């Protein structure tokens, strides 16, 4: 636009920034997906997990293998840990079908795979072989009384699904009726047909492709990336709208030129092409520069420190740039093309053009500010919702609450913690409350589910107030002390068990004994630490518990870090040559998530900030142009006595008329969008309306700056010059 070249540069800058951010976000996404694809390809994309609550038998396996669409099937049963007396390691056995290695693509470092006739033989994971036998090839030797027939090749650490097998020992499954929890199925043809065939044969199973299983391990990164992609798409839409706004102003500015071109023979499509080309050129140039900037930014980030994987998003970015350019150009070009040539010729002066009646500029500026301010409120909602979510994970805990437990899934023998260790823990200085906790896997009577983890808690538990009890109440000290048959359920388990019914007062049958449900606790993430679906008094199943752990509450004067060390040392003394106990704090989990939240929010706030900046540029452009069109009017006002201050006020008011309604629209849009976003993030629903004032302040600031600045520049013109310029 000839009269306002700065506007074009600002919009070009907006497109460059938006493309760079989009390029980065999509590049990271592409890198992440490529990594998942590479993991999937390593194992073969045609592998599916088939799961049924009631398990599978050998007959089911054969039946599935006989389906035309299925190439091969293997079964995976439960795992069990054996403690070998006198050894510094334990063994975790996994029962598998003979074809397991072939179907799961597990190469052998030495030895052979299972045959259907094998009994009392084992195949070792690489780490088991390293710990137990060192550099010796163990094939042919005995382990725990079983002949070693093979050793698995080492599985890389990035292979989240299979790497556990490094620490495990594979054994052939027996011939029990239901011995496999999961079937691994290699399909032979189209996935859709294979799924249909499996569902037809086993209507109640769930089928999960291996790609989905791997994706679950990257869920956090993918969620953050999705937020980044959505935000950058929002920014790109803003940039596209700014291009549309600029083109619209350009149409008004060049209306007289349009008239001239039409006079000398240009058709309406010719004029349309002129502006579409201009829009595409602007967005295209911005897109190319932005992609380069995105790549440079990534290069810079990778030099500065942590570098995420980056893919090549050109195949997405460039078509998107083209489409946005095209869409942004359509309305202004149509406005230009439909202009009557004689009328267009009459719009020679700024004064005439100000009355042209070509609309849309205000709407577009409003749209830009609305999207940006809506994004700001969504971010606020995200942070507030996350804070509420973190606050809901646990009860009123702090760094003084510690959980002492055996390390999980370690080949090194874990210390066999028992209820007797309670006394020793209490002797440590700084320990205020200790509650013992036993655990075991139990099938709940009356429901069709695999075994769940039940924990028994002993005296001291109620004082800890560890859990966030959402419904009903926690177990009381009296109930725990007397071993009353009452139970506290995880929310997800209660939902699974009782559906829509109120679980409080319902009865649960454990080991054929009825337990009354007294409360439901939030287990959205507390499961990670607690790992239990049902909590009952310890005394109820006394003697049947294993995997003991302890909840420790320290005195205010105690230093948690020192106490942690003291606890680890204590158990090392009691159980020498075993793995160190884990001392973790639920509060640390919250802190870790809060750190993640801050990192995510800071990245998103940069994007939202950029979005608001783009919105401000859009308003600045519009107000500049509107003031340019009204130059003569402003000159006349000055002649009539208006001060410079009044001219600035006029510009600010012009901008506020756009930004304030846009702020409210953005607020409304983001309130509507908060629910779906919180559901997407698995957060409790909350709309922090008390923070809405930030949006209003932000849009007022944008209005004052974006309107005041061009108005101040206009106010510097002498009245005579302004009148003269208006007549040009």
């Amino acid at each position, binding site marked *: 636009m000839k009269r306002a070249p700065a506007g074009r540069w600002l919009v070009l800058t907006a497109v460059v920034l938006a493309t760079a951010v989009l390029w980065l976000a999509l590049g990271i996404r592409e890198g992440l997906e490529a990594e998942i694809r590479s993991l999937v390809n390593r194992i073969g994309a045609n592998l599916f997990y088939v799961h049924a609550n009631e398990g599978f038998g050998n007959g089911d396996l054969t039946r599935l293998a006989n389906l035309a669409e299925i190439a091969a099937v293997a079964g995976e049963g439960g795992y069990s840990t054996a403690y070998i007396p006198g050894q510094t390691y334990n063994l975790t056995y996994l029962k598998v079908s003979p074809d397991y290695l072939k179907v799961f693509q597990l190469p052998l470092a030495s030895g052979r795979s299972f045959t259907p006739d094998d009994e009392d033989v084992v195949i070792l994971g690489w780490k088991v072989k390293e710990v137990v036998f060192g550099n010796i090839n163990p094939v042919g030797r005995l382990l725990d009384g079983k002949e070693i027939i093979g050793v698995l090749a080492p599985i890389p650490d990035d292979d989240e699904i299979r790497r556990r097998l490094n620490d495990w020992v594979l054994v052939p499954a027996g011939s029990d009726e239901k011995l496999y929890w999961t079937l691994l199925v290699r399909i032979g043809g189209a996935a859709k047909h294979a799924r249909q065939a499996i569902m037809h044969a086993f209507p109640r199973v769930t089928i999960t492709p291996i790609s989905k299983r791997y994706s679950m391990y990257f869920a956090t990164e993918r969620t953050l990336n999705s937020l980044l992609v959505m935000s950058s798409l929002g920014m790109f839409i803003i940039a596209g709208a700014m291009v549309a706004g600029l083109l619209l102003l350009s149409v008004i500015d060049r209306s007289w030129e349009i*008239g*001239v071109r039409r006079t000398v*023979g240009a058709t*309406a499509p010719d004029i349309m092409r002129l502006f579409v080309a201009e829009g595409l050129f602007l967005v295209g140039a911005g897109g190319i520069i932005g992609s380069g900037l995105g790549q440079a930014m990534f290069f810079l980030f990778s030099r500065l420190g942590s570098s995420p994987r980056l893919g090549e998003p050109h195949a997405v970015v460039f078509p998107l740039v083209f489409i946005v350019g095209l869409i942004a150009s359509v309305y202004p070009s149509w406005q230009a093309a439909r202009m009557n040539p004689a009328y267009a010729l009459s719009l*020679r002066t700024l004064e005439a053009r100000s009355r042209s009646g070509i609309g849309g500029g205000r709407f577009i500026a409003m749209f830009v500010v609305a999207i940006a301010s809506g994004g700001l409120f969504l971010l606020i909602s995200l942070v507030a919702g996350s804070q509420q979510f973190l606050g809901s994970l646990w009860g009123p805990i702090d760094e003084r609450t510690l959980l002492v437990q055996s390390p999980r899934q370690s080949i090194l023998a874990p210390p066999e913690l028992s209820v007797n260790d309670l006394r020793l823990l209490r002797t440590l200085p700084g320990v205020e409350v200790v509650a013992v906790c036993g655990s075991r896997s139990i099938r709940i009577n009356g429901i069709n589910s695999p075994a769940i983890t039940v924990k028994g808690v002993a005296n001291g538990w109620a004082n800890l107030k560890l859990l966030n009890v959402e419904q009903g109440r926690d177990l009381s000290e009296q109930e725990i002390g007397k071993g009353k048959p009452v139970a506290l359920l995880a929310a997800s388990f209660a939902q699974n068990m009782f559906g829509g019914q109120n679980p409080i007062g319902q009865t649960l049958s454990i080991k054929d004994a009825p337990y009354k449900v007294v409360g439901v606790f939030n287990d959205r993430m507390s499961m990670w630490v607690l790992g239990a679906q049902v909590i009952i008094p310890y005394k109820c199943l006394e003697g049947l518990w294993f995997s003991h752990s302890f909840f420790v509450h320290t005195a205010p004067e105690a230093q948690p870090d020192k106490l942690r060390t003291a606890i680890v040392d204590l158990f090392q003394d009691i159980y020498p040559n075993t793995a160190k106990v884990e001392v973790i704090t639920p509060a640390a989990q919250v802190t870790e998530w809060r750190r993640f939240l801050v990192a995510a929010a800071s990245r998103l706030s940069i994007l939202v900030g950029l979005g608001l900046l783009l919105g401000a540029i859009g308003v600045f452009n519009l107000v500049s142009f509107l003031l340019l069109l009204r130059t003569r009017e402003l000159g006349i006002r000055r002649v009539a006595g208006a001060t410079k201050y009044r001219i600035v006020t006029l510009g600010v008011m012009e901008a506020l008329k756009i930004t304030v309604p846009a702020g409210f629209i953005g607020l409304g849009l983001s309130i509507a969008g908060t629910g779906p976003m919180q559901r997407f993030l698995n957060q409790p629903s909350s709309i922090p309306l008390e923070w809405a004032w930030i949006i209003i302040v932000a849009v007022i600031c944008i209005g004052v700056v974006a309107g005041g600045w061009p108005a101040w520049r206009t106010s510097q013109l002498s009245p005579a010059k302004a009148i003269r310029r208006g007549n040009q």
Partner: protein
Amino acid sequence: MIELQGIYKTYIKGQLKVPALRGVDLNVTKQEFLIIQGPSGSGKSTLLNLIGLLDEPTRGELHLFGESVQELSDRERSRLRGRSIGFVFQSYNLIAHLKAWENVAVPLYYAGLNRKDRYQRAVAALTRVGLSKRIRHLPAELSGGEEQRVAIARALVINPKLVLADEPTGNLDSKSSRSMMEEFARLNREGVTLIVATHDPFVASFAKRLLVLQDGVIVAANQ
């Protein structure tokens, strides 16, 4: 060549209806040099816009080069305008960021000529109006008279059958006005039909036929 029957043109401004032409009947034959005179607001420019297919009448019949233009599509009207009609305006209407030859070549671009041909024909047209040394100048670097000659070159570059000029001398000094009108007279002798709207008596003196328009109605006609 041009036939107008009962032409009305009314502009709508908000609630207000402003009649610009009220039942104009006019015939223009080939190689005529018609001057339309009238005070400001009499409808001269509107009449030229209608003849030049820049606008459409509210009512009435308009025939151009032997065919009715009422039924023509926008594309057909644009093509006809771009290939047969040249325009010269009081304010020259040159595109500020295009050089003199580029301004002249704009109609040729829409006529589908390649760049080389456009350049050659534009230079020839500029040479014809005595601006061979100004072909690479921007409008801002030309005098008013030179700008108007560029505008004439742009009108002539398509070898039009008809040239429409709206107050062509309005911004020119007397010397430039004379020079321009002499150029028009020469064009007319070469076979171009000219219709010029003006309120300048000097311009009117070049007319083969003179019409006087007042309040949208032809009030006098002299041969």
